[in-house]
């Protein structure tokens, strides 16, 4: 197991390096000059001399390989650099933003699992019946409605009309715990919607699969109660692949909650990434992407390890 984790970590480091290099190179291919942009805010004309000055100050006049070397060198010494825009520490910003994104994703995952597993299990038990059809219809609907539509409607109904919740935004937990939770529920609920659909569908398929297995028949042959068969022998076994999918979905969500963050004004990592790309803030983009890919790889590893823990048949030897 340790050996496996070590092996995977080495692969992960390599992978992250490839990703960072790729993004670094791609970014320099993207049109738009950070210095020019920074000085053209508010649709004003930038003074070419000022732009040149800023380019020099930001090190953008160095040859690409030198910039890359600086960057990688910085990363290796644990320094993710500072923002082109206001000189804020990239690492500091990520530390501030990441928990907010994780909070949304984890809350969404909890909601999705809490609602999706029972729904999927029910649909499987009633496969072909109307309950199954309704759940299947709802999950398709949840998958097909873009989050920005859901978000807009949620805001319109709950914030503007009913005034039950604030219209998006973010308040730190320490400042106002209740408000923090309310604001969290909006994006988390919206993310959970699509995730719920995925979990429900996976659970349905997985439960159906497990129901066909011989050991469920054995459990019945043992005269166990329905509840015990369902919880211990069906759902528990069926959850193993579902959790794997959940883990992978959460991995893609780490950098993928842009629209939700935008619609609900939730200052997470995805929105930060987009604003950094918009501003061509190279150190920020590279730093964020690096953290996201590390998390992604790490999450994959965790998923594998959890899988091995849940399913004793899987050995992590490699």
């Amino acid at each position, binding site marked *: 197991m340790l050996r496996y984790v070590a092996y995977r970590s080495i692969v992960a480091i390599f992978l992250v390096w490839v990703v960072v290099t790729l993004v670094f190179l791609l970014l320099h291919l993207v049109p738009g000059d950070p210095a020019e942009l920074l000085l053209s805010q508010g649709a004003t004309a930038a003074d070419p001399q000022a732009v040149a000055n800023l380019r020099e100050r930001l090190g953008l006049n160095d040859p690409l390989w030198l910039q890359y070397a600086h960057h990688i060198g910085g990363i290796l010494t644990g320094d993710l650099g500072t923002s082109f825009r206001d000189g804020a520490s990239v690492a500091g910003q990520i530390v501030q933003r990441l928990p907010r994104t994780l909070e949304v994703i984890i809350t969404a995952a909890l909601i999705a699992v809490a609602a999706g597993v029972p729904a999927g299990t029910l649909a499987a038990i009633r*496969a072909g019946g109307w309950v199954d059809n309704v759940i299947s219809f709802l999950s398709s609907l949840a998958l097909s409605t*873009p989050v920005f539509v859901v978000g807009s409607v949620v805001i319109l109904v709950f914030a503007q009309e009913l005034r039950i919740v604030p219209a998006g935004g973010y308040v730190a937990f320490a400042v106002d715990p209740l408000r923090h939770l309310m604001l969290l529920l909006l994006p988390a609920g919206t993310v959970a919607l699509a995730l719920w659909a995925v979990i429900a569908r996976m659970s349905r398929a997985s439960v*159906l699969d497990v129901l066909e297995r011989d050991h469920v028949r054995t459990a019945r042959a*043992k005269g166990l109660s329905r509840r015990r068969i369902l919880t211990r022998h069906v759902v528990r076994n069926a959850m193993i692949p579902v959790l794997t999918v959940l883990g992978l979905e959460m991995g893609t969500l780490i950098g993928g909650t*842009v629209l939700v963050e935008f619609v609900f004004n939730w200052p997470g990592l995805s929105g930060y990434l987009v604003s950094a790309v918009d501003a061509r803030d190279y150190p920020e983009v590279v730093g964020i992407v690096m953290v996201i890919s590390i998390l992604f790889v790490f999450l994959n590893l965790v998923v594998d390890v959890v899988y091995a823990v*849940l399913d004793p048949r899987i050995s992590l030897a490699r």
Partner: protein
Amino acid sequence: MRKLVLPVSIIAVILALVLLAPVLPLADVRAMDIPHRFAGPSMQHWLGQDEFGRDVLTRLIFGARASLSIAIGSALAAAVIGAALGLLGGYFRGLVEILTVRAAEVILCLPPLLLALLVVTILGAGFWPLILALTILYTPNYARIVYAATLQVRGLDYVTAQRALGTHPLKIVLRTLLPNVLPPLLVQISLVIASAIVIESGLSFLGLGVVPPTPSWGLMIRAARGAMEQAPMLLVWPSLALAGTILTFNLLCDRLQSVLDPRAVPAGGAIWLRRRKPAASPPRAVLAGEDPVNRRAVAGTPPAAGPGDLLAIDGLTIALRRAGGIGSGMELVRDVAISVRPGETLAIVGESGSGKTLTSLALTGLLPDVLEVTAGSAVYVARDGRRLDLLAEDEDGHRRLRGDEISMVFQDANAALNPVQRIGEQLSEVIRAHRPAGAAEAGREAVDLLRRVGIPDPDRRARAYPHELSGGQRQRAMIAIAVANRPKLLLADEPTTALDPTIQAQILALLSDLRRDSPEMGVVFVTHNLAVVAEIADRVAVMYAGELVEEGPVAEIFARPRHPYTAALIGSVPEGGAERLVAIPGTVPPPGKMPPGCRFAPRCDHAEKVCRQASPPEFRPQPDRRTRCLRFEEVT
């Protein structure tokens, strides 16, 4: 395939609309009519006009062109590239795998939106960059799925057979592997199309989508969101189109899955798990005093069962139940009558499809949901002396008996044990389900049971998972579960079939020991191995094509079979020095195509015209033997 009609026809309609859009009598997709912006539906504009006064219906249909061609185009492109990477990586492994599948996985580390953002910004927004971005985005998914499927398929014998034939590797990949990884690929394509439509709308929403004035659903939603207060319907139409299309593709995907892999979706889920209202359950058939065996409806000789029987099955018929489906009512087991006395071992022997396993499952109510008992009774004398008709019991009634009075041993212990539960727990579970035992007490008892079935080091084994045990030990554990509550009736379904000879001998010896310990226990032993029958059973019932063809004491039947099928079976065993084995020509007829007369007649050397006319009745050549052959006197 009928399942596909609905989604495919909806998609066909959508595609037809989309393809025919230029020739349909629609308004000009770009013509603005700003004075009438946000006008409601009218005769000219069925769905109203948008923020530039353009016709919403027209833009919806033309929007489908952009949205669908991007989604379908990228899904297909990614499928081709991903499948190629997955196939090559999965078949050749090693370095090729690193260069294909693993390389594609780098993309997964990048946030999808960043990737789309970068591609679209570098290449400029528009149709082709969007397709490229989505293609890159989805390629690793395909590569992964095809890779996994390839790994599964490449180990299969028919791929090895191609290698053995000396076929060129690339040809193997294209001709043998590709078609066989197609089902998951197809399902993935329809999934990806659905997801790509959503992503396209998201990108358009962020301004990374198609370039106006070309409409796309995403662009329409984006524009409408701003004007939500003025004209909410503008948001509704494209959202509906989007949701509807995706719904259709999801439907297609689901249906495709069930068509390509029929095993995946059993009809009706798990009926036994549904809690029925107590009132709906039929009253328990307590048949005290009445002897049900005399109610035999089928004409012919009375069954060979007496009042001393532990179990008397009579007239058991099992049929396919599928409301309105094909083959509904087809009988898989017909009119089977067998009885077991306490302490007796009855072997049911027959080839696959003979109904021997179904017979034993019917007794415990464990038939698959698609099958049901349509006639017959199985009178069982319970511990408390009551006579119960097992076939009339409902799920709860069965549950009280199962694992307690009547227990089962299944063929494949590897599959029959829960892979993620410790052996000890699986054992104490059955104890606690029927007896008021504490966890610790049941745990101790479980260890004792393991010791009793001859598992070495039972303390440690109790904490092991099934996969940590050898095949023989697993089967022993399975037997331990079955005898945990000292059953009166043990149903063993091919318990030694998958085992090696020395292990099989051990398990058979264990069963003998257990019978010696519980002299009152009746055993029904289902097998296809005649030699095993000879070793273990007192009496044997031979089944063929769902019917009981011969029954009687083992020694007598092996010495002188009174049915041509039994005789042929014995002759086909490669023992003794015969140069050629007796091979029964042809195969067992499938359930839907049973011959009208004797079911064995088409393969029987001795069949005559009369055999093919009517199903033969049972004959009793001796008091304790039965045969279902008209000509048993002449041919045996």
